[in-house]
């Protein structure tokens, strides 16, 4: 138990450090939010002014914007560790590797939650979707989706952080793995916005929970190998 408490302390210290660096440098938040806004606007322009069409496409657009911007966010958060070989120093501390993973994933989750909530609000305004009527299921979907993206993103950002072509490799590696999450999140959002007429919301949320549990467990078990040369 004391081991778990110690790991939780380490994870929180890493997440706090990332949050502090992010608040000072705004490496991830600003670029990520701008990117998400541009994605939403471009998709909106591509679909045209038909409000019914935009509302029908809103769940898909919401999650495409979150996923694309999320990839950028986790990549930026890991770049903090490449300045002056900080990742090597992090690996030298006598702490559990899974605690390092958990700390980096928590930092990623914090940024993803901010991103998810802002994008959700933006979709409501830009595409005239009533998100107030289904706020709770939408928030649960955003939290579960953000957790999955942070879990997968932290692992693959660790894989690519030392590569020169990391900006290209990260989406190539992440997007296929995120396909089930994207499907579940879009379906859950769509069901929540339409009042869940077929009673499928629970099933899609269960898929997201299962995805998150598997990805967090896999990331925690394997991240340590990425820190070794």
């Amino acid at each position, binding site marked *: 138990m004391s081991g778990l408490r*110690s790991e939780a*302390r*380490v994870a929180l*210290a890493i997440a706090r*450090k990332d949050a*502090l*660096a992010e608040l*000072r*440098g705004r490496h991830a938040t600003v670029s990520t939010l701008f990117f998400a806004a541009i994605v939403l606007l471009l998709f909106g322009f591509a679909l045209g002014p038909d409000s019914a069409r935009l509302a029908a496409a809103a769940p898909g657009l919401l999650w495409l914007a979150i996923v694309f911007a999320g990839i950028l966010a986790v990549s930026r958060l890991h770049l*903090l560790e490449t*300045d*002056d*070989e*900080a990742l*090597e*120093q*992090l*690996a*030298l*501390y*006598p*702490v*559990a590797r899974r605690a390092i993973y958990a700390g980096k994933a928590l930092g990623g989750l914090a940024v993803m939650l901010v991103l998810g909530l802002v994008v959700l609000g933006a979709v409501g305004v830009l595409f005239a979707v009533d998100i107030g009527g289904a706020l709770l299921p939408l928030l649960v979907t955003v939290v579960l989706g953000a957790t999955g993206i942070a879990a997968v993103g932290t692992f693959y950002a660790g894989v690519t952080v030392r590569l020169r072509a990391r900006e290209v490799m990260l989406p190539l590696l992440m997007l296929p793995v995120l396909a089930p999450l994207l499907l579940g999140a879009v379906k859950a959002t769509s069901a929540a916005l339409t009042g869940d007429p077929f009673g499928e919301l629970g099933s899609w949320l269960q898929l997201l929970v299962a995805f998150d549990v598997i990805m967090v467990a896999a990331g925690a078990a394997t991240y340590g190998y990425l820190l*070794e*040369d």
Partner: protein
Amino acid sequence: MPQTIYVSPRSLGAFDERPPAVVTADLARLFAGSPALAGVSLRVEPGATVALLGPNGAGKTTLLRLLATVIRPSYGTAQVDGLDIGREPELVRVRVAYLSHATGLYDDLTARENLAFAAEMLGTPEPRQRVSRALQDVGLAGRADDRVRGFSAGMRRRLALGRILLGSASLVLLDEPYAALDADGMALVDQLLTAWREAGVTVLLTSHAPERLAVTIDGSVVLDRGVVAETRGHGVSELPSALDAPSATRPQQVVS
């Protein structure tokens, strides 16, 4: 800067009772098929201060990185305080502190925040006091709340040395500790070496300025093209290689 630098107290025990600080047996590391370290067998006594000397590419940094568990050996073994670096890296990391060429600091955090984070990672008792003391010891108390982004290379080096003071390592590995430091900074490294010696901490350091080290080291190892060319002084000795047997093969021969 205070007269005495605070180093974590440790139970020294009788000199003979402590296991060797470092034992390596035919330790080798290949990079892209080329041996950076080609079979090094050494014994370093506990509490000794030993310099690793040799030209660029001799394998000094590779040996330090192997002992710090940053990289894994391609061949051979090494033990720190009797713990195998390959099989028990987590336990080795508790005992080892490493200053590399890079300082591993976060630019957007202040000097104090960087050390406070390190103290949390190291589980340092009374972290606030220890961080303040370490900043004072390395001469950065006046810049404690400035972001590291504005620090010179020498100040970053001092701060990285301060980070080592937060732990309770029994083996300190320093890669070119005098690099980027001014005269005061070099004197600080000398003071640290003295403090570690008095605390019974073993120190392995590389340097291209052996004349600077003459009064602070017990012994030295000269490496050349990945092998031990010579050992001098006390506290370090070359061990016989198991690969010297007629049927054995050295890593260079394996590669060729």
